[in-house]
């Protein structure tokens, strides 16, 4: 139930979605609108700077003033859209033009029918993406955490969950390669590892990777929607993983170091907190999203040069994309389209990659050979591993309908140390989260 927008904007949308407008019409309209409000996670100074340095002048060329809102949590932007809509502000009247989004938040907007519409393939730069459903490489562009994008958002960056070690304390050869290795290593040297606490998505992802690794069927069942998967299968798929998490709990940083003795295990709240532990020498290994993360942190002085990436867990490294979405009550829809187009341009994607280590959102397969070569050149060297290795071990993300369930189980079973049987905890969480 979208609120009614103002007639001009509504007409623009229907015309644009119907393909009645040329891109020049869009540019003209965008110039009239004059500005665009982009809400994005603002926790990275590099990204913030890059947007101001690169995207802003680019949009200015089209007569559009870019206003970025650095939110702490993308949810805030989604809330704003919902609230605006609830108070009757439709297209052309809200406050959010574009959101950097993926997963659950997109799912929220999608299920509440608060998206502008299928625009992704109508941008000039849609040529840089596979959108054809028959093409397997289009999967990450058309499905976001298992939820179909319906072309209502356009990818602008990709990521992969990657781990790093400090070779000053842990030789790459001794580094674990699988979760079994990890457990062995932890039992030998307790306290040298920990992972980010769910519900931070970096924490969720670690849990998901554990689930993949301990499920006989691998990642496959986790791609399904909860309704399609069913509780029984879900218990089957997750039990092993959670038992593993429970086993290593006492051997994590601060965890007590012995079976059955729970100290005070530390699960850092955020990637920053995790990095701090590594830099302080409290742990030797950490995992988070960001292929180029270690490289960038070394470059910016936050990591010592002795830090290297490792491939862990082999064959189960979650990889995904994130997107630009336009909400249904965007005050400047045309300018939002221009923004989406600009950030998916080849030059800007390359610049983003080379300057701040944010991987390409566009598909290299759609690029010319020269461009592909340029892309390779633009990317930073990865310490200790190669891009190809990353690609070989990549697996897709978990369906967003399951994420909350996993989160709930982790909190109850690990964080709150509930005494209930694991199966019941799983069932409880399933029942509260799956509607």
């Amino acid at each position, binding site marked *: 139930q979208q609120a009614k927008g103002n007639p001009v904007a509504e007409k623009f949308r229907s015309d644009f979605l119907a393909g009645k407008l040329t891109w020049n019409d869009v540019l003209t309209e965008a110039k009239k609108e004059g500005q665009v409000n982009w809400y994005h996670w603002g926790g990275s100074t590099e990204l913030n700077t890059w947007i101001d340095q690169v995207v802003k002048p680019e949009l200015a060329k089209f007569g559009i003033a870019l206003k970025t809102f650095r939110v702490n949590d993308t949810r805030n932007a989604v809330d704003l859209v919902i609230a605006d809509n609830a108070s009757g502000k439709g297209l052309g009247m809200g406050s959010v033009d574009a959101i950097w989004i993926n997963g*659950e938040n997109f799912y929220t907007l999608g299920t509440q029918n608060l998206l502008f519409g299928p625009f992704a393939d109508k941008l000039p730069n849609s040529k840089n993406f596979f959108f054809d459903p028959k093409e397997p490489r289009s999967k990450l562009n058309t499905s976001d955490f298992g939820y179909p994008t319906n072309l209502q958002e356009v990818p602008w960056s990709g990521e992969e969950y990657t781990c790093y070690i400090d070779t000053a304390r842990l030789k790459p050869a001794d580094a674990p390669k699988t979760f079994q290795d990890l457990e062995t290593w932890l039992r030998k040297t307790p306290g040298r590892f920990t992972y980010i*606490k769910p519900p931070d998505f970096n924490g969720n992802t670690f849990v998901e990777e554990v689930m993949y690794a301990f499920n006989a069927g691998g990642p496959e069942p986790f791609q399904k929607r909860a309704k399609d998967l069913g509780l029984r299968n879900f218990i089957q798929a997750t039990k092993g993983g959670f038992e593993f998490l429970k086993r290593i709990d006492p051997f994590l*940083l*601060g965890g007590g170091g012995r079976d059955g003795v729970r100290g005070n295990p*530390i699960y850092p709240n955020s990637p920053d907190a995790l990095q*701090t532990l590594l*830099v302080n020498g*409290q742990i030797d290994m950490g995992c988070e999203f960001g292929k180029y993360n270690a490289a960038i942190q070394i470059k910016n002085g936050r990591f010592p040069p002795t830090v290297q990436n490792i491939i862990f867990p082999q064959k189960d490294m979650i990889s995904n994309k994130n997107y630009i979405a336009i909400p249904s009550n965007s005050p400047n829809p045309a300018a939002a389209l221009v923004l989406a187009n600009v950030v998916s341009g080849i030059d800007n994607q390359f610049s983003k990659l080379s300057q701040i280590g944010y991987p390409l959102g566009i598909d290299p397969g759609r690029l010319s050979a020269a461009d592909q070569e340029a892309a390779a050149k633009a990317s930073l060297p990865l310490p200790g591993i190669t891009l190809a290795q990353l690609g070989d071990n990549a697996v897709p993300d978990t369906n967003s309908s399951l994420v909350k369930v996993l989160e709930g189980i982790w*909190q109850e079973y690990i964080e709150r140390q509930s005494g209930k049987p694991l199966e019941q905890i799983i069932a409880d969480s399933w029942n509260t989260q799956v509607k």
Partner: protein
Amino acid sequence: MELPKANPIKHLPQARRRWLGRFRIALMLAPAMAVLVVLYLGALVLAFLQSLGYAPLYQINTFPTLHYYQDLFSSTGFWQSVFYTFYYALIPTFVGLILSIYLALTLRKRFALKRLFQYVYKLPLMIPYLVGVSLTILLFSNGGIIARVLHLIGIIDNPVEFPRILYDHSGLGIMIVYIWKQVPFMTLIIYSVLLGLGPESEEAATTLGANPWQTFWYVTLPQIMPGIITGTAIVFAFNFGSFETPFILGGGFPNTLPVEAWRAFDDPEPARRLGAMAIVMVISVVSGGLLYLYIAWYRRFEKRRGRV
């Protein structure tokens, strides 16, 4: 029958003035009252309605239901939160009070650089809590400055050996920030009450044979009680409802009630947001009720002693 002699002229101005006066009082109170009634009382009423299940904003209307309160009270995490909220609020109030009283007493003395010190001690009062948080992180984190100094002098080897002060349920980091920021506030209040008191009654006690400790205990302390009561009440209420410090420096689940309220409110699931409102109501009622009892107790105490 004799009619009473009417004298309208004489009584008219008086009547008019009184009416005007009443009207004027209402008029002058109106702006401040309006702001607080609409925003503050309105906010509380709205939160209360939501906690009872009335939230058209999220297309939820199960009004009235105690469901959200029942959920809350039946979860063990909530009661732990209650405990931590009290714990983090009470200890710094108490410790800070003792430090403040002593500092205020010391400030009355004559000493070199007193003027300068008057500036220095008020500094934490002037800057946001978040700055205190930031300073605490820099100093007290496991790899922080203090740990490094301890390493330098050979007391610890590894940051792991440094006691956990931040991100821990002991709440030491939270309390350090509170105390650091609130001691100046309480000191200022107590010091100002002391200034108003003047040294005379203490001198009188001294000439009557009371030693410094007796003088403090029997003469000074009872007289600065009003300042202490206000100071501790404000500080406790603040700590009880404080968000950013426990949010950043706390030990995660279960955290203080305000943080839990925020977490719940931050959830995309609307029903959880109504749960947040239930927490909010609990915080308000507990904090308001406690302070009411505290002040009522103090009033009675004072009344018994003939004051007020």
